[in-house]
């Protein structure tokens, strides 16, 4: 499982780095960034799904997952 951010959609709400700080950080303007290559360790799969489901802009994605 891997996460990604659609930077065209991200507006810097910060829900991803609030809910899954092990997977996401922010840049100097507050826009979300994937840490590392986005691979989700098994113990963070729930946090990854929360980040996807709580992004107001639908900018956080789990490619390959419905």
């Amino acid at each position, binding site marked *: 499982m891997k996460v990604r951010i659609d930077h065209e959609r991200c507006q810097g709400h910060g829900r991803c780095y609030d809910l899954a700080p092990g997977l996401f950080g922010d840049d100097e303007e507050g826009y979300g960034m994937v840490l590392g290559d986005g691979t989700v360790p098994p113990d963070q799969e729930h946090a990854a799904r929360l980040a996807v*489901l709580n992004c107001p802009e639908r900018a956080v994605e789990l490619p390959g997952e419905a």
Partner: protein
Amino acid sequence: MAADDRFSEDHLRGPAGDAPAGVRNQIITGPVSDWATDFSHLEPEWAADPYRIQDDLRQRCPIAHTARFGGAWLPTRYEDVAAIAYDTGRFSSRSIILSNFRPPRELAPIGGSPPISSDPPFHHDARKLLLPAFTKAKIAEQEPGTRRFCHSLIDAFGERDVVDAATEYAQHIPIRVIADMLGFPPQDGPQFREFVEDLLEGINLPPDERIERVSRMWEYLLAQVHEHLDRPREDLTSYLINAELYGRKLEPAHVVGAMALLLIAGIDTSWSAIGTSLWHLAKTPSDRRRLAAEPRLLPTAIEEFLRAYAPVTMARLVKEDMHWHGVDMAADDWILLSFPAANRDPAQFDRPDEVVIDREVNRHAAFGLGIHRCLGSHLARMELRVALEVWLERIPEFSLAHPPAVTWAAGQIRGPRELPLRIC
């Protein structure tokens, strides 16, 4: 280097200045006949409970209209609110407070208080200047001082059994934080409250009185600019004075307009969110006890308070005549862009009218959607979390002292303005 004379009398235009005139319409007040065709967010019925009105409209007339304010539309479905927030091509932000005065079209794309009043492409550049000061990490620097300040407010309650959580607690927190960030004297706080009321609640006042009130704020901000020109500091005012865009320093109206935005937008919004959350907990003992016992649930509960009681409604102006989602909009019609209504749309949320403090999936729009996402959202979340943490730690038991005594602000920012709580 030459002295900075951008802010001298000769160079500066006030808010009424020599800009092209806008359009005023007849002011219509009084009871609403039908919310679908005559709505007004300034009437007491709306202030008391806008949700019932919005829920009803969503079912029978999802894009309501009023002839008040020279013509305005009120969409109540999430999908329509989102579509308008994203469509900056057809809906302008050149005025985001719905009133009886439309600023001239020439004011776009900058608007009176950039970047909230700006349209693309200028918006992006004006916003970029401010974003670094409002990141989560930057805001975290304000947290220890905010926490100390919240404690000092509760210390000041003394031995009293009943306190007003709106006027003695919630209101002071954002005022103190934003005054600190802008580098304004903390003792000027009471004036800021007046500025907020003048701008956001005096919508139906006679135009000349409205202009005079707005001018008072402009003069205050200008005095702060001069104070900072004389003694530059590490704060947002000095930052804006020195900031550059397109290779030159900002226009003076941009500097003062942005200061006005930061001062006004940060105050009664957070004040309302803190007050409404305390109001909910005061009348819902099960939620109050659970949060006092499980402080780790607070961030999740805060998102639910923001969804269910989103304090902020924005406005847009239609750019051109058009048929849009089943209605005929005319150029310069207002849109009352209700994020609170979007947040209670059953097509988007399960059990939308219930406050579920452990709601895990909560894609709410309290801070807006698209390019105008609230610049201060990280600041607001910090203030709200710290204010509630300190309150629940110090005062875990509290209730409404006298429910009918709670009063709510009318207009685009909704929250309790009087909130007497029994705290023994």
